[in-house]
């Protein structure tokens, strides 16, 4: 199941955006920056989550290619 390897990507995307949102919310609570702290951090979170998903996808596709090589070896053996 090669799709397994990307299983966490979606969840980590969501978690990253929410984590950034929490930071922004806390900043807005203690500094008079509302609503820009939350909005700014949400944008940062989405950008960073997209970057992370992109990196994870590249890693997944490259490692699943090597994984299929393993399978060929299995067949030989």
């Amino acid at each position, binding site marked *: *199941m090669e799709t*397994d390897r990307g*299983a*966490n990507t979606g969840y980590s995307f969501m*978690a*990253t955006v929410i*984590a950034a949102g929490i930071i922004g919310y806390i900043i807005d609570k203690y500094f008079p920056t509302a609503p820009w702290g939350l909005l700014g*951090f949400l944008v940062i979170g989405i950008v*960073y989550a997209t970057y992370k998903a992109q990196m994870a996808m590249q890693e997944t596709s490259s490692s699943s290619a090597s*994984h299929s090589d393993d399978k060929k070896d299995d067949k030989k053996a």
Partner: protein
Amino acid sequence: VANPVEQFVIKSLSEKTELTFMGVDLSYTNSALWMTIGAVFITVFLTFAMKKKEMVPGRLQMTAELLYEFVAKMVKDNIGPKGRAFFPFVFTIFIFVLMGNLLGLLPGGIFGLPKVFTYTSHLAVTGALALTVFFAVIIFGFINHGLKFFSMFVPSGVPWWILPIIIPIELISFFVRPITLSVRLFANMMAGHLMLKIIMGFSVAAAGTGGLGVALGFLPTIAGLGLLMFELLVALIQAYVFAILSCVYLKDAVDLHH
């Protein structure tokens, strides 16, 4: 109509003997009973199925081997060759969650059968499981990598001037893992069972009105039957998702290249 939330009520089965330890109620509840049933059932099943190890496996041995290979492949694909040490842990979690999800779908409370209880529909149970995974990741991460484990929060290939923003985000998304892991399972199981009970309850309520109600009362049951199939799927998928995310998190404890 039967109360749809009644199925989630925790009842003490040892009311006569009060069991308390340092002010904590340790009564044997229906939740604990079904956890015991699940654990005993799978132990007996796997022991019995693998008793006669035949070259050409029978039905029971086939099922046991299927379960083993399913989880073994999952661990191998997601953690890597070093992950074999975690196989018993992941297998136990997978089977425990699967048993909880599936045993809760058994028909109960009719024809004098005891009422079934879905222990995975309680945040206390799934939370304990998720925290076990969470602390396993932290403990094995520090055992395997020492203080280098902290480099997990520093993503590679990111300019240094963004790091003050990125590191808190990484930290928080690490610490919400047990929350998302436990809430995903508990919410899925609770919502599914609740919906099943409510839709099926419509049939009983309609039949109770008599006349046209009796004639049309079977319609919600048909919908409920479809939902039961769907719930069976959700039970399997959620156990799988829980196990696979445990694998993904445990991978961080095994190797650290990010």
